[in-house]
């Protein structure tokens, strides 16, 4: 479903007024963070927008649109949402251009008021992650593009103090240095699932909201994980290389690979992505094992108390956990040895999850059966020793987002 996103900033009172007494269809909602500005309190009816919206906060979080990472900040009203007034079939909000359904028209006065408030809001986009996103940000706000300024410092000197929102991606670290250059920054929105590139404590100290897009990538990453596993076990890219090199000279020219269906799949980190992978491989009759810090109630999945045990009992090991201090090099030599000469490692997490030199030597020496890798320790540099291995599938880490993701 295509959703338009609205960015309402400091429209607290107006927003409350709009919502009061109306029969809002608040589903689905993309909620970044919701605080009532102090000035809005006098507009608060017996039900406050916060109370009204609160049940939908968890809905939005379940749908995995955004979540707030920072806390303890000055009250601000910051909502990303789509409001449809079902009772009057009119739409109120800001700058609303809907592709679906097209017949809703916002009251012009609201549009005008909202547009005025938004137009002058400076938003910095760090990277052209997505053309649609860029276009929409440009329409709604005063958009600055980091890559258009050379050197980048010139942008910060000229516009730094005006920037109130930044949209980033995993390739650009958000640290004290960057935050120092943006004293008015209120929210950092990362178009990614992982936020290991963000210094969360710095952001928290400065009262900067941090958001990610926890669920928009889930299906894509899960698809990729399974695709890499089948490609590695059945050696599909290798077959493609063989044919393209003109080596297929006779019918009946083949090597035996190993069946994917029924292989024991071990997942490190059974979060959204891990679960999505589990669902897919279950359709291939693969038994699912997992490891994570806490065991959960999954009657069909077998929990192992350590990654080594998980590896020892799996044929395909998938890294699907977030990167933090505990999970750095969670796949080390011991785990690789446990996975063994018939085992396959699939990394769709982060390069630093795996001891890469160990991985390379294990693959080259045949101590590990194969690998499907989307991420590397030092992207875009990939160990060349892997290039000639038939049993290794390499893809460049997908940083830019796809057309389908844009509408979330």
């Amino acid at each position, binding site marked *: 479903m295509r959703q338009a996103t609205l960015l309402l900033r400091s429209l607290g009172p107006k927003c409350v007024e709009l919502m009061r007494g109306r029969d809002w269809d608040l589903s689905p909602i993309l909620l970044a963070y919701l605080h009532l500005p102090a000035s809005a309190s006098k507009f608060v009816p017996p039900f406050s927008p916060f109370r009204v919206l609160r049940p939908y906060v968890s809905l939005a979080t379940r749908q995995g649109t955004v979540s707030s990472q920072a806390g303890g900040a000055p009250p601000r009203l910051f909502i990303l949402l789509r409001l449809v007034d079902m009772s009057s079939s009119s739409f109120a909000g800001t700058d609303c251009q809907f592709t679906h359904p097209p017949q809703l028209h916002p009251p012009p006065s609201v549009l005008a008021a909202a547009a005025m408030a938004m137009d002058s809001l400076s938003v910095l986009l760090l990277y052209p992650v997505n053309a649609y996103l860029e276009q929409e940000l440009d329409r709604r706000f005063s958009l600055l593009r980091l890559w258009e300024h050379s050197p980048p410092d010139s942008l910060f000197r000229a516009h730094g103090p005006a920037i109130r929102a930044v949209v980033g991606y995993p390739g650009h670290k958000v640290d004290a240095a960057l935050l120092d250059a943006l004293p008015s920054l209120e929210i950092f929105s990362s178009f990614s699932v992982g936020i290991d590139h963000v210094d969360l404590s710095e952001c928290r100290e400065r009262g900067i909201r941090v958001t990610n897009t926890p669920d928009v990538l889930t299906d894509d990453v899960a698809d990729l994980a399974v695709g890499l596993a089948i490609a590695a076990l059945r050696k599909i890219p290798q077959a493609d290389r063989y*044919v393209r090199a003109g080596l*297929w000279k006779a019918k009946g020219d083949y090597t035996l690979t190993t*069946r994917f269906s029924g292989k024991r799949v071990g997942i490190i980190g059974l979060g959204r992505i891990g679960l999505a992978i589990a669902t897919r491989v279950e359709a291939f009759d693969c038994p699912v094992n997992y490891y994570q810090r806490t065991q959960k109630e999954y009657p069909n999945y077998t929990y192992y108390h350590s990654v080594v045990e998980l590896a020892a009992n799996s044929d395909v090991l998938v890294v699907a956990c977030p990167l933090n201090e505990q999970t750095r090099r969670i796949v080390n030599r011991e785990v690789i040895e446990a996975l063994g000469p018939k085992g396959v490692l699939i990394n769709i997490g982060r390069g630093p999850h795996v001891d890469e030199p160990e991985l390379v030597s294990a693959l080259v020496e045949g101590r590990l059966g194969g690998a499907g890798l989307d991420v590397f320790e030092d992207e875009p540099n990939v160990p060349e020793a892997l290039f000639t291995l038939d049993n290794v599938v390499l893809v460049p880490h997908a940083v830019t987002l796809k057309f389908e993701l844009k509408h979330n």
Partner: protein
Amino acid sequence: MPAILLCRRPEASFSAALRERFRVLDFLASGEPLPAFLAAAPAAPEPPRAAVVTGGCSVRVDAWFLDAAPSIRCVVSTGAGVDHIDLAECARRGVAVANSGDVYSTDVADYAVGLLLDVLRQLSAAGRYVRRGSWAVQGDYPLGCKLGGKRVGIIGLGNIGSRVAKRLEAFGCVIQYNSRKPKDSVPYKYFPNVHDLAVESDMLIVACALNKETRHIVNKNVLEALGKSGVIVNIGRGSNIDEEELVLALKEGKIAGAGLDVFEHEPKVPAELFSMDNVVLSRHIAVFTKESRSDLHAHTIGNLEAFFSGQPLLSPVQADSVVQ
């Protein structure tokens, strides 16, 4: 021990297993031309009543073959496809035919999903990009698209097609299909013809057998109906698709991509495909895993033993059937 006529090259373990149970007349090992070999066969102590054949080798089981080896009353093929067997002729003579049944279905279905994911996520093309050092120099590779919500049209919902369906459902695909007759037990939407299926599908999976009706079942019209963002995967037979039209459609951007394990004139692959990043090429290896190999041996022996003991074959093929 009953005698069997072996018309395919066996692996050592298969050969040993067969010789434990049967007297094996190994045609290919004899080095003789087929007519001479077959002429000699009935003269042996006991003529062979069963033959083990495979598709893609030089032996075609037709009227000529059956005339030359009249003792043969059962033909067991070690493949799923039986386009090398004249089923009508066998039926006329009361010669029973068996194929590999379900043995390969899982691996072929897995391979179909693998090819599809490779095309959609450009795994092979991206791998080439990384291996020639382009990632460091040229930057990020453009992304593919996910399976969720896509409409998958399966041509031939048999043993393979139904397994493909089950797998793709887990990715969030909508499954629909064409086959000779609708299958009442499945929840998927049926299309009586492939063109209409293509109109309503984002991807097509060719999973049917090759016979008179299915030759070029995917033709120019079907490809046009599939459309500019459509993807096709073929794990049936090369001739299920009009290959010339397929190449043209890919060249002209009339479809978005293809995953092909089979071709019309194997091992010849149209050279125009070699430069296309939206195509994944494979060399007719969807069945070849260690597991299916050992399953096949067990299954072939099972069919032979059933025949010789007067039991029904494990996987009989009827003259008018579309087998997987």
